[in-house]
């Protein structure tokens, strides 16, 4: 799935970042008929957030824009193995979003009504039903949103499947190739400089995750994103104990059990980054929070802790589409931790937008200009940060 040959002098499209977004987009661009596509990654495939997250897939959000988009994406996850002709290790085992407080349950009630109205088959269940499904969960749980169509995916396997499928369609994926500059002439993209030489192109897509802002800056664009770190931990293997993906909305911690039997858990909230060094406070806090949800797991041994970096916009929603100030430069970042769930829809819709200018109603709310226009697309089921600065895309040249 990787290309070891040198970069060619010219490409029809250069995607920066070979994570799940970049790989999915490359696959769809090729599927739409575009040739001469290159995906460039500064390190090994999956070295960014794609390779570091817990892999949970869900469509249970709290705003119409988010629900529509991520429901479409979740449906695509269900058919992805057939589409790509490869194992993606998607396990549609069901997703539980827990409420530990009564006011959260009220919020859930409203959200489920909205989700159902948009065709998502989620339902609100009470604490007793949660514990019937998952006996290991604390008796203190008040209830949950249960979505049978949600689940989890082996993030690396899915990425490799996209990369292999793209490669089979002629896409070149170059790892260990760092982008060092982007040439913009007369308001349009014309070339990309890398650690392995320069190449000319009229289309550049920034799918560089935590490095997305740095890449955009090379094209003279300032992105309103902040980089945050998230941490995950994994335990030893146990017999099957937890059957669904479990997320505690109130204490912002998640847990699922892999096919090998390990519990993968971690905080769903982020902190200012300390780089990729795992931190003590996060490990200890996550452990305490997960024991609040699963009080019987105190003897489970933690084997590994790791950190990932995500880029967050003021409304936590991604930046998808063309940038007015630079022709040929597109954004596919700011996913804020939802990039894996959003990869199938993001790749498919963004490919059509890039090639045909098609602005589907699903992708339209996440357009790049929304922030300048004050159209925040938040989600009431997530904690929405107060915007710090003016949230809009700024061209510096």
């Amino acid at each position, binding site marked *: 799935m990787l290309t070891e040959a040198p970069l060619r002098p010219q490409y029809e499209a250069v995607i920066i970042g070979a994570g799940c977004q970049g790989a999915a987009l490359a696959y769809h661009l090729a599927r739409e008929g575009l040739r001469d596509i290159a995906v460039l990654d500064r390190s090994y495939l999956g070295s960014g957030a794609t390779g570091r997250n817990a892999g949970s897939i869900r469509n249970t959000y709290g705003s119409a824009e988010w629900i529509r988009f991520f429901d479409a994406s979740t449906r695509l996850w269900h058919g992805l193995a057939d589409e790509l002709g490869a194992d993606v290790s998607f396990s549609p085992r069901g997703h539980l979003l827990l409420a530990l407080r009564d006011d959260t349950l009220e919020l859930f009630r409203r959200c489920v009504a909205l989700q159902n109205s948009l065709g998502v088959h989620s339902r609100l269940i009470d604490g007793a039903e949660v514990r019937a499904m998952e006996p290991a969960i604390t008796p203190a749980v008040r209830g949950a949103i249960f979505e049978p169509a949600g689940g989890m995916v082996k993030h690396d396997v899915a990425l490799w499947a996209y990369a292999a499928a793209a490669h089979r369609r002629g896409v070149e994926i170059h790892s260990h190739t760092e982008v060092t500059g982007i040439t913009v002439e007369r308001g349009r993209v014309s070339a990309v400089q890398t650690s392995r030489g320069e190449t000319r192109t009229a289309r550049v897509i920034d799918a560089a995750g935590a490095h997305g802002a740095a890449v955009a800056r090379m094209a003279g664009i300032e992105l309103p994103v902040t980089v945050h770190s998230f941490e995950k931990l994994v335990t030893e293997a146990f017999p099957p104990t937890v059957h669904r993906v479990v997320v505690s909305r109130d204490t912002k911690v998640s847990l699922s059990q892999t096919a090998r039997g390990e519990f993968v858990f971690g905080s769903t909230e982020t902190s200012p980054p300390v780089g990729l060094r795992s931190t003590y406070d996060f490990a200890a806090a996550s452990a305490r929070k997960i024991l609040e949800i699963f009080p019987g797991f105190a*003897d*489970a041994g933690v084997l590994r802790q790791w950190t990932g970096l995500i880029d967050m916009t003021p409304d936590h929603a991604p930046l998808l589409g063309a940038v007015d100030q630079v022709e040929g430069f597109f954004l596919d970042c700011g996913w804020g931790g939802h990039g894996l769930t959003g990869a199938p829809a993001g790749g498919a819709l963004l490919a059509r937008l890039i090639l045909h200018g098609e602005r589907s109603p699903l992708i339209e709310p996440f357009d790049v200009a929304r922030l300048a226009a004050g159209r925040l697309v938040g989600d009431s089921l997530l904690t929405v940060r107060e915007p710090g600065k003016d949230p809009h895309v700024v061209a510096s040249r």
Partner: protein
Amino acid sequence: MSEPLAFVFDGRALQGRAGDSVATALYSAGLRAFSHSPKLRRPRGPLCLAGRCGNCLMTVDGRPNQRTCRTDLRAGIAVESERRSPAARSGAAFTRVTRHADVVVIGGGPAGMSAALAAARAGLEVTLLEADGALGGGLALEGAMATTAEGRDLARALALELGALGNVHIALGAECFACYGTGPVCARQGDTLLEVDARAVIVATGAHEQPLLFENNDLPGVFLSTAALRLLDRGLRPGARVVVATVADFGLTVASALLEAGVQIRAVVDGREEAHASGPEVGRLRARGAGPMFGARVARADGTSAVEAVTVAVGSVEHRHEADALVTCGGFRPAGELCAQATGAGEFVLETATPPSIATPPGFVTTADGTRLFVVGNAASIGDLRRAQREGTIAGIEAALALRGPAPAVQAQLDEQRAGLVDGRAR
């Protein structure tokens, strides 16, 4: 002490002895397959007996995934081979203890003990963390650093000196699991989280013995040579008819130890050329009719659920030995994990000389977040006892100078110690 202790294994009543681990008690009761591998369900036996390999994991008194080689045998203990999910345990109490020290020494072997002594004598408050139940590290193993008697005497002497100092806190059974930069050095001591807040960290974590690769190298009855020594220490044997395969002098030493214990050795297989092997060790074996075959390696171990035969290859010529155990020595690599984790370095570079080692920074380094870290002894690179003691002493003195400022008497000691170094490494 051989007071019998009754315990239960998979519902059967068994007996072990005081001083046994659950693993050695099960082994002496005749158990050979302790677990089965996750994917292929192949039987696995105790391989390292040092709390590292994961083959001896069992459920003990309801607690899953316990390393039985690190679990002391107690009367009435209930052991199950079946994997279990974690479950609430009555009486479980997890606590946190925070200690402050000038310097924390991780590892209570000869390098660590020497470092703790030197730092304490120079006036520092020292916390010494040792994962085992007793100080000594490699000194407790025959031939690891010295003969058993010498090693044990030295360990006892150093431990006594340390115990007599009021400014040394020794934490036994405390396994250091991370050095969190801006946070503390963290260790697990049973159900207690031990945090050590120190201004300098001396890493003396020793080395991991490495296995050899051959067909069916996962069969019960294959033991690392240090595991074989641990069995001998409990009056047990890895087998009645043993093949020893090695690529390092340590394996030859263990072969001699096995012969001393009355084990029949079918063959000693050494992958090196004779010129690279220790003359005295080879001589000892030859004198007992167990001279090594050089330029030879194990091609294959055979057996349905445990070792029954070992096929040795010299070039393309193979010879099959009936054997019920295979003791291997693949050399040692520095236990550089802590250093790599703390510094974010720990690059693995293959060297042309054997054995390859994972490079770790020697001497004091200051990490990106300001932690002062000094790696000594086998944890830095594999060496001998004298070097381990010298490096540990240097680290302790250097810590004192770094934290207390210049002091002529202390500096003089450091100069004397460093005079014993060649190229920055004690030789």
